[in-house]
Structure formats: C-alpha cells, structure tokens
C-alpha cells in the first residue's frame, strides 16, 4: 500500500496535464508565429530597402554621368535609356527637366549654370500603391 501510494505521488510530481501542455504549446506557437511574422516583415523591408538602394544608386549614377558631360544638354534621357532597368519602373516613373538657371551670386550679379533635376518615381514593393518619389538636382560642368 505504501509503495502504491509512493508510486502515485511520484507520477503526480513528474507529469503534465493536457491543459498544461496545451498552454505551453500555445505560448510556444505564439512566439514562433511572432518570429515568423517578424521574419517576413524583415524580408519585406529588406526588399524595399534593396529596391530603394538600387533606384537611388541608379538615379545618382545617371546624374553623375550627365554631370560629367554624357548626353546632350537638353535632357538626360539618353543616359537613362542606357541604364539597366529597375523593377516597377517604366518611362512614366521618370520626370526629367534640364534648365539653364541663373544663380544669384549675392554680389548683385547672376551666374548661369546648366541644372538638371531628375525625379524618379519607383515601385518600392510588389504593389503599385507603394510608389516612392526621389528627386535629385545636379549642376553640369
């Protein structure tokens, strides 16, 4: 009898009820689900960052080439056409304007320079509603 009692007590201290197990699994699943969701968010953010980095790098390179003298002084479209494409970017995503601008020299006179503004509207995610706009300005040598 004593041994049977001892055996029963031992089982009660070393086991879990089904309720305990379900609670534990639920907590674990919440953590796993949160980690999975965070991972997906990070992947999405990384994709967005990569697209932004490519777009801005592409834009900067285009303007830099224009600044150094490639292309006509009328616009930078010739350079744009030679640059590799960007996902989610088409011709409608570009706004190019080149102007001859007088800069005030603060000395009463003006100084004329050739200024190009390149506005790039690019799709930052696989969703056409997720467009971002980047505008850059350069002076041509």
């Amino acid at each position, binding site marked *: 009898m004593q041994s049977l009692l001892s055996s029963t007590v031992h089982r009660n201290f070393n086991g879990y009820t089904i309720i305990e197990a379900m609670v534990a699994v639920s907590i674990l699943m919440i953590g796993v689900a949160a980690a999975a969701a965070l991972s997906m968010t990070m992947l999405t953010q990384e994709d967005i960052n990569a697209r932004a980095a490519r777009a*801005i790098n592409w834009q900067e390179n285009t303007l830099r080439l224009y600044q150094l003298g490639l292309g006509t002084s009328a616009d930078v479209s010739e350079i744009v056409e030679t640059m590799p494409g960007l996902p989610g970017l088409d011709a409608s995503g570009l706004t190019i304007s080149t102007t001859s601008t007088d800069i*005030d020299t603060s000395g009463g006179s003006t100084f004329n320079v050739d200024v190009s503004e390149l506005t790039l509207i690019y799709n930052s995610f696989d969703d056409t509603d997720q467009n971002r706009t980047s505008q850059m300005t*350069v002076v041509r040598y």
Partner: protein
Amino acid sequence: MDLEFGVQRRLALRNARAMCQLYFINRGLANSSPAVDLDLGGGWGKVGIPASAENPLGSQQEFRLKNLLSPGWDRGFTEDVLATVYHPVPYDTGGAEVQTSMRVQLKSRSPLLAGNLLILHHTLTNSGSIDATISGGVQVNGHATFWKDESFPGTVGNLKVESYDHSDIVSEAIGNLAGNHIPPTNYPFFRRTTGNDVVGATGVPITDGRFNMIQIGTAPALPPDPDAIYKKNTLHYKMTANSSPTVVDGNFDYTVGAVSGDELAGQRRITIDLNNPAVSPVIVNDGVFHIRFLGYMDSGQGDNEPPGFTIVRSSDLLSVTFENNNYRRLVVGLQSSTHRDVAVNFTNAVSWRLLLTSELTSTTWNVPSGSVVNLTGGIRTDSTVAVPSGLLILNRESSPNALELMDPRESWVEIYRN
C-alpha cells in the same frame, strides 16, 4: 532616409565643385573676382568663394620676350583660392549647416592637353554651327584636341596623331602615326575653354569650346575701350601693346620696313619679308587679296630674332603664300567676319615655323603632290583644314624657350579637399 541624405550630400559636394569650377572658367580672363556665395537651393549645393585678385589667364605681353604668349603669367600655378562648401545638417529643421573647406587651384595650363599642336574649336556663328573638318594628309607629331560639336562626327579623315582628346561623344577612330586606330587618352571631357565675346559693347564669357582670340570687337574699329579686360587676351592686344603695327589695306602700295605692296593679277598683294630685322607687327585689313611671306632662311639664328606677327582681318583674302624655308617664329592670325576659304601655298618651302590661328577661315594647304611640308608650331582653328595633296606635318618646337607659344583658351581648375 539616411541613404538619401548620403546621396544628397555627395551630389551637393559635386555641385559645389562644379559651380566653383564654372565660376572660375567664366572668369578666366577677368582682372579679379569678387567674393560670392553660389547657392543652388534645397541643400543641393552651396559654396562660398572669397575674392581673388588674380587674372588666371593673364599673359606676358612684352613683345620681345621669347615666351611671348605664355599664359598664366608664365607660371604653371597661378592662384590658390580657399572656397567653403556648406552642407545642411540632416534632420535639423533650423537650417544648421556644416562647412568644408576646398582648395581651388586656378591654372592656365592643362597637363592633359600639354603638347597640343592641332586644336579644332567649336564653331558657332549667327547662322549656326559649321561642320569644320580635317581632311587629306595631315600628321601631328604631338597631341590634337577637338572641342567641336558632337553632332559632327567622322570629320577627321586620315588624320594621324601621336595622341588626341575629344570633348563630347565621338564615334570615330583616329589613327596614330603608324596608321593604327587608337583611342583618345581620356574619357570625353566637358568643355573647359574660356574666353570672351562681345555683345553690344560688353564682354561676355564664352566657355563652350568657341574661341575669339585674334581681336574682339566690331571690325575694323575697336570698341571704345581697347584696354577692357575682355580684349586683353587677344593676339591683337598683345602684339600692339608695346609695339606700333604696320597697318595695310587695299591702298597700300609702298614699302615700309619689311612690308611692301604690289598687285598680282590686278589684286592687292602684300609681301612681308621675315629676313628684314625691322619686321614689325602687321595688321592687314580689307582690300588685300594675297599675302606673301618670305622666310627667314638662317636656320641657326632664328631664335635670336623676335617673332613676326601678322593679323589678317580681311574678308577679301584669297591666298597666303610661304616662300622658301622659314626658321624664325611667325605668329599669324586669320580672321574673317563671315566664314571663308583661304588657299595656303608653298614655293620652295619644306620647313616653316608657323603658329597659325584662324577664326571663321578655312584653309586649303596646297602642298605639292608627293611632297612633305613640315610646320613647327601648330594650328588652332574653328574651321576646316584641308590638305588635298602631299603631306603636312605639324611638329613641336624643340627649344624650351620657344615652347608654349600657342595662346591658349583651355583653362584648368583643380579642386582638392583642404
């Protein structure tokens, strides 16, 4: 956002450098520069330039100096200016700026373009661009530079050069002395010429590859102020600054010093004898149809004589003839108010020292068929150079005292982080 701030900072720095460079190229011939702030706005570039008291492209003007046309006051380095670049502080809404100092070195000699013997400038007239070409047998034992418009590719024919550079995109190949195609020595460079043109009575900077360096102003009279700074860096000003020129026109029928006038087939001809020690600057105006140069033939004494100067501002000129060999430095400027062609003939001549500048004047070099004519000096033009027969070879001066005679229009600005 940080990435965009970084890109904006880089571009703003480049824009500041570009504005700084353009500002000084525009003022390459100015006596001095006032202190200015150039601000592109929006944080895309702002630079503060202090006042400068130097004329970067000023030249020595002493007539009898050997290095007569040396630019930059005969120095490689002319002036250092410390410019300040202003950057906006990211995320600061109060307009705070940080400052970076840049050292701007204004030079008048381009190391890239050193040794230029043939320079083809951009041509732009009231009627538009002219398709100036180099055709026939032309060989350049040195460097060639093309400032011409990219809309006229394929115009150098069989030109042979040691090396060359080109502004704008070029879609043609140029051969080396062995006839093998070679690439330019560098990427196409942006036009960095400097100079002035006259609008009304005021000098305005031109930096697009054109040049206007023989005489600025309405021919034949000078504008009211001949000492205006925009006229000082011209052949006309330099050769007349310290010497009285001999001025000839269609009525010149005399002999004055080394210059004499007669008629050739009923047309006025001027003969300039470079053997005459009294040769002075000669200005040839309308009414003269032919010019004949008699070469200085003592090959060992040429450097001991001052250079001969002749400027032709005639729309009537038909031909220039070089007789015998010439070992004396000769600076010739051909200028026309409207584009025209001039025949260049050789009589008993195989070697000539000649520094030719021709504006709106195309030249056809009538080298005898199968013959070679060596020019020591160079050609700077905005018009066509044609050699229909024979071979015209351009050589560089061998004496250091005679180098760098070609009056430049290339300015050189170097900018470093201070």
